[in-house]
């Protein structure tokens, strides 16, 4: 009996649980459990992970997600929620192979990346008990804590501090001769904070940076006065030493590296593009820095996010246009440089904005919003699904005077961090769990399969790692202890069966192999 026939036959055993044979073939290594000995062994052959780089793009102010990634399948509801700022239906950029979702018309660059399979939309990202304070919410996202906890170190800082123990005292050394992390610009983000200091250094421009620091300066003594003054003086001396210690390496990388793609012209004032241009040059020049942090400000669009005459123009369109042009230029650059497979990037913002607009053609602080992860290594174009604008908004049961609606969370932001730490940087999961103070389910962002994280109906998005049911092109694993009920026939690439499937009526699973 052919496998497909077997499945079809099996499905006729209505309402009976059936254990599929495990030895279904066609699995790539990535689909194996993280804790399998083979995977662990491979992870520790550091070569596979050593030269991987993360670029974090911070959108300062709280991006309006609903005008960024637009649910085309609910256009009427979308339009009714925000009639004074809604993007006209015909202006929404469609996505290849995705009829339900579209992009803001200013985002053609990101649309192209999506169509090429190099951009992942992570829908409705937030965390439980969301804060709508810029400061607090950004702090939660950067330090990766629960909403009722505080922490002085950043999530990436904790990772770097563990991976490069002894920083900064024992650095630069032969294992790592370059800065662990670099922020382009001046902002010192809590994301990179370790227990004692930032694990990153800030530079504005590699050339002027080298000119600014005077390599001949050294501190006169290691002695420190008491108390806070001593702590501050130690901090300043450390910054002096770091700036001198790394200036030469950064300058060398900047000199060796070349930008190969065209970036937006200077007249566009696209500061994000300028920052990413430096990042691409430094990576290409051989700098081994693990994490780059860049940012774009202005997303706190309480008023005038669109112009009076045209909802596809205005402050928000300009910002999204900059974001899109900057990232697509960067991606093209590293592709031409031949280092595309070494870099992934992610965006995040303070929070999402209200689904309902205000009368000033703006949006007030809200809850969930999409994140983007970009790079040639991502394997999921979509994680989660469009927010349900009819039944999925907050408050769930609005009182008569509650005339606003927020977008509820689907994906906890820490799941994105967990995949980056585990699957991109190759961190042991137990360590990742300590960096994130908890174990978070994978989104299988970097693998071509999808797993169950709970029992339930096949169509229930919450039982799947990717926050949505599997696509016909995806490998599926039913994890041990999980029972999935299939009410209607589905098509997937293949199934790795470790739990149970239950079929109703004539429902079955078609495998495309």
């Amino acid at each position, binding site marked *: 009996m052919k496998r497909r026939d077997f499945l079809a036959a099996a499905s006729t055993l209505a309402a009976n649980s059936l254990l599929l044979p495990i030895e279904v073939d066609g699995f790539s290594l990535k689909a194996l459990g993280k804790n399998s000995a083979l995977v662990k062994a491979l992870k520790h052959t550091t070569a596979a992970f050593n030269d991987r780089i993360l670029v974090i793009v911070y959108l300062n102010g709280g991006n309006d997600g609903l005008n960024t990634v637009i649910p085309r399948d609910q256009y009427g509801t979308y339009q009714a929620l925000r009639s004074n700022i809604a993007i006209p239906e015909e202006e929404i950029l469609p996505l290849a192979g995705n009829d339900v979702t579209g992009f803001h018309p200013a985002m053609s660059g990101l649309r192209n990346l999506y169509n090429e399979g190099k951009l992942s939309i992570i829908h409705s990202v937030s965390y439980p008990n969301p804060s709508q304070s*810029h*400061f607090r919410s950004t702090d939660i996202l950067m330090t990766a804590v629960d909403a009722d906890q505080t922490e002085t170190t950043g999530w990436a800082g904790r990772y770097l501090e563990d991976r490069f123990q002894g920083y900064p005292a024992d650095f630069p050394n032969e294992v790592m001769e370059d800065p662990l992390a670099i922020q382009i610009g001046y*902002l010192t983000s809590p994301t990179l904070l370790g227990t004692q200091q930032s694990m990153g250094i800030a530079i504005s421009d590699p050339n002027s940076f080298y000119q600014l620091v005077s390599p001949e300066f050294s*501190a006169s*003594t290691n*002695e420190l006065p008491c108390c806070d003054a001593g702590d501050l003086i*130690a901090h300043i001396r450390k910054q002096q030493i770091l700036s001198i210690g790394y200036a030469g390496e950064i300058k060398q990388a900047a000199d060796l590296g070349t930008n190969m793609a065209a970036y937006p012209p200077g007249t566009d004032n696209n500061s994000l593009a300028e920052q990413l241009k430096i990042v691409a040059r430094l990576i290409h020049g051989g700098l081994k820095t693990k994490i780059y942090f860049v940012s774009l400000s202005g997303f706190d669009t309480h008023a005038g996010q669109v112009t009076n005459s045209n909802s596809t123009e205005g402050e928000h369109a300009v910002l999204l246009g900059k974001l899109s042009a900057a990232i697509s230029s960067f991606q093209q650059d590293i592709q031409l440089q031949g280092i595309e497979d070494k870099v992934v990037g992610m965006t995040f913002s303070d929070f999402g904005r209200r689904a309902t607009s205000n009368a000033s053609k*703006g949006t007030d602080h809200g809850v969930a919003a999409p994140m983007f992860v970009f790079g040639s290594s991502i394997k999921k174009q979509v994680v989660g699904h469009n927010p349900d604008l009819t039944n999925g908004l907050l408050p769930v049961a609005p009182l008569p005077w509650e005339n606003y609606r927020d977008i509820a969370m689907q994906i906890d932001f820490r799941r994105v961090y967990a995949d980056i730490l585990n699957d991109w940087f190759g961190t042991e999961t137990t360590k990742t769990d300590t960096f994130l103070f908890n174990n978070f389910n994978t989104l299988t962002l970097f693998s071509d399969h999808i797993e169950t994280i709970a029992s339930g109906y096949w169509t229930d998005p919450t039982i799947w790692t990717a926050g949505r049911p599997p696509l016909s092109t995806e490998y599926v694993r039913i994890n041990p202890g999980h029972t999935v009920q299939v009410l209607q026939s589905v098509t997937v690439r293949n199934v790795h069966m470790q739990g149970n499937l239950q079929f109703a009526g004539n429902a079955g699973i078609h495998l495309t192999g």
Partner: protein
Amino acid sequence: MPYLSTYTEPLTTAQASHLLRRATFGPTPNEITQFTGLTATQAVQQLIANQSFVTNPPPPVELDSSQPLAGQPFLDKPFNSDRNFWFGTYIKFWWAGQMARQDVPVSLLDKLALFWQNHFVTTRTVVDDYRYLDRYLRLIRAQALGNFRTFVVEITKDPAMLRYLNGHDNEKDSPNENYARELQELFTVGNKDFAGNDTYTEEDVKAAARVLTGWKYTNYWQQGSTSFTSIFRSDKHDSDNKQFSSYYGNAVLTGRSGSTAGDDELNDLVDMLLAHPETPKFICRKLYRWYVNAAVTQEIEDQVIIPLANFFKSPGNNFAIMPVVEKLLTSQIFFQESNRGSLIKSPAELMLGSLRFFEQPIPDPTTDYQAFRKLMDFLHWNSTDMQMECLDQPTVFGYDAYFQTGYTKNWMNTTTIALRSQFTDALIWRWFEVKPGYKLGVDVLARVTALQPNFADVPGTPAITCETVVANFVKDLFATELFPSQIEFLTDTIMMMGYSRVTWQFEWNAYRSNPSSTDRQNTILWRTRSLMRYLLRMAEYHVF
């Protein structure tokens, strides 16, 4: 333990310097002398009383000599959109000039005004209309030592604030919550209490937004308009009752209608915000972090913040600001030695403080406006690069160094430290010409010459030693004491560069006997500039 009780001993030089560094943008040597020996109370009262010299300075003028109004005030003229950006910039320069001036007795006004401007943030970039910016800045300076209740009421209605946090857009049928949120989170109660608990709810934000509906500004960016103000539009006001949460004792603010509804409800709202137990603590904690130390331990919270907050809100004081500032600046905790050097200088404190300490005169902003502009340009762009753009904070939270983890450590990263060194180096190399005959920086040669008795009498009067030069250069320069090993290093390695110390006396006497010899002068400059340059690059110079 001594905390808020008054420090009563006469101030030593180090203590007087500490007070002046914290309460102003940094002392001149003369001011240190004047304040040494006063009691803390006398000194602080002096700093308060001296505000009378700067409360009403001449207005800013057009600083572009190619403009018809050059040297003339512009705020009394109709709105001129062509000059909007520059007039806004000149207002920034005008304020920086007030901070740095040395022609009147030193006061604490503008340092405190900067605290409030960084508290009730609005920015030139967002507010944009220069007249709004001027009115806002005058409000900040006028209320800095006034009453906090009045301050909150007035800032809420201020046209610049209505612009910056969208109060203007907040109407009955379409509330805009931006101001209502920041009013609670940043201006009064604070987002969390000391233990990290919430202090208000999202519903409180919405309710406060409804209270504040109807306020508008007028004539924004109106070319040729001669006046502007804030007004209340009762037809845009939500006149229903507003229910607040248990954090505010479940208060219900009565909805009003008619022309006085806006003021009446605003007053009720501010009364309610000030009655919140966290408000006085939040403000006092922030003042403590500004003036004393960013680290607020449980002990400090219990022994300093809470008693100070109780005093702030007590019926006898009723939210007057001046007595609170006086109490804090005269307290034992303020003068505790461990609180010296416990903050990193902001770019303003570094640059304006250096100008004041090295007695670099500020050209008269009206009569010598071209030189004034040139100097202020230099300071402004340097400060901006160092992450402190005057009247242009990056966000409504203010500068990172006053709220972000690490507090004033945020002023120092690998880039800003290099920029700060570039600035202090400029004071040594003196390449920046403010105007003919005035190059910014330290005349080290004159300083050393002044140390030498009977300069011309080489045979009869022994040369000053290099130890004397080092001791003079470090005098009153740092907030903390240097270690003997540092003094040795500065003398032998930095000044003498490995030569024996006695070499200095030969070189100095050679110069004394022929001061016009360039070679001999250069030897002296080489050593003394090396020393001063190094001192200003030391980490110790950047804490205060």
